[in-house]
């Protein structure tokens, strides 16, 4: 049940410049999505950190359970052949 005296929590994702992906920057409280965007602008882009903002209600994120880490992530540990480490990356590619 939602607490009427506390604004819901939003997660904020910032794209720092064109071509890069949005990265999680933090979270904040806001009454609605437009307000969350304004708060994100004021909290997380005041030093020119970004050119684009996404906000999403924290409750809309489905997260994996840390207790499941063993079964989810352990099986990948011994499969090094899945890493693309045998390619040469051209110098011109900056943001791979």
């Amino acid at each position, binding site marked *: 049940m939602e607490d009427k005296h506390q604004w819901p929590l939003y997660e904020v994702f910032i794209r720092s410049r064109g071509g890069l992906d949005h990265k999680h920057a933090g979270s904040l409280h806001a009454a609605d999505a437009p307000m969350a965007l304004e708060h994100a*602008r004021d909290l997380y882009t005041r030093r020119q950190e970004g050119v684009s903002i996404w906000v999403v209600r924290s409750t809309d994120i489905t997260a994996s359970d840390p207790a499941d880490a063993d079964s989810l992530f352990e099986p990948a540990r011994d499969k090094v052949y899945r890493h693309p480490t045998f390619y040469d990356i051209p110098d011109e590619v900056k943001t791979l």
Partner: protein
Amino acid sequence: MSAANAMSAANGMSPATRVRDDDLFQYVLRMGDLSLVLGQRLGEWVGHSPALEEDLGLANIALDLIGQARLLLGYAGEIEGRGRDEDKLAFLREQGEYFNPILAEQPNGDFGRTIVRQVLIDAFQLELYEWLTASSDGQLAEIAAKAVKETRYHLRYSGGWLVRLGDGTVESRARVSSALESLWSYTAELFAEDAVDRAMAERGIGPRLADVQKAWNARIDALLAEATLDRPLDRPYSWFGKQGAHSEHLGYMLAEMQYMQRTYPGARW
């Protein structure tokens, strides 16, 4: 100061070669005072806002306004040509030498009242700055070009809140309605044209205030409709902040704002 100087250098106009222009000085000073006084008022919210996020939001707007005041007062000082820079103009003038409209100095009250005051002034500054980007005064046009972007955001913020509060709970609606009712009579001054305003309009430096008022009305009416608030009736008007006659509130605000410079003249850090 330095930014304003840089701009005047870019325009090929040095302070020394400029002919003193009392109307322009007064006009620029009024705009600078409006931004400075409103910025100082918003700064009073720091540490007291209803939420941490709003604390930063209001402080951000306050800093934009004080930045505008720096450019405008710095430019006013150049026009005056008597060695008063932005700091001297901000910190060493008495209440009667401030020329902001009285609306700007009205106390913050509750958050709703601050928002109402902000909406009324943001919409005014937005119309004014939009016009001034095409001013025949190059330096004013440059200052306006920077300020208009900031002000668009200010109105987005304050207007969004007006709609949320007006069309919100019974209590939030009652609070913004009463703030609107009590602040409304101060808006008449924003559009009361005097000799300075007329001179500026004739020289293509500033807009006709009747035009600004028309655009302001349209913007405010649309916002009020969205916020489901009634537009108050216009009342007889007798406020002259822009001629130096202020309400009792400005003196207290200036006392706090100017305390440091008056106690330790010339102090820097």
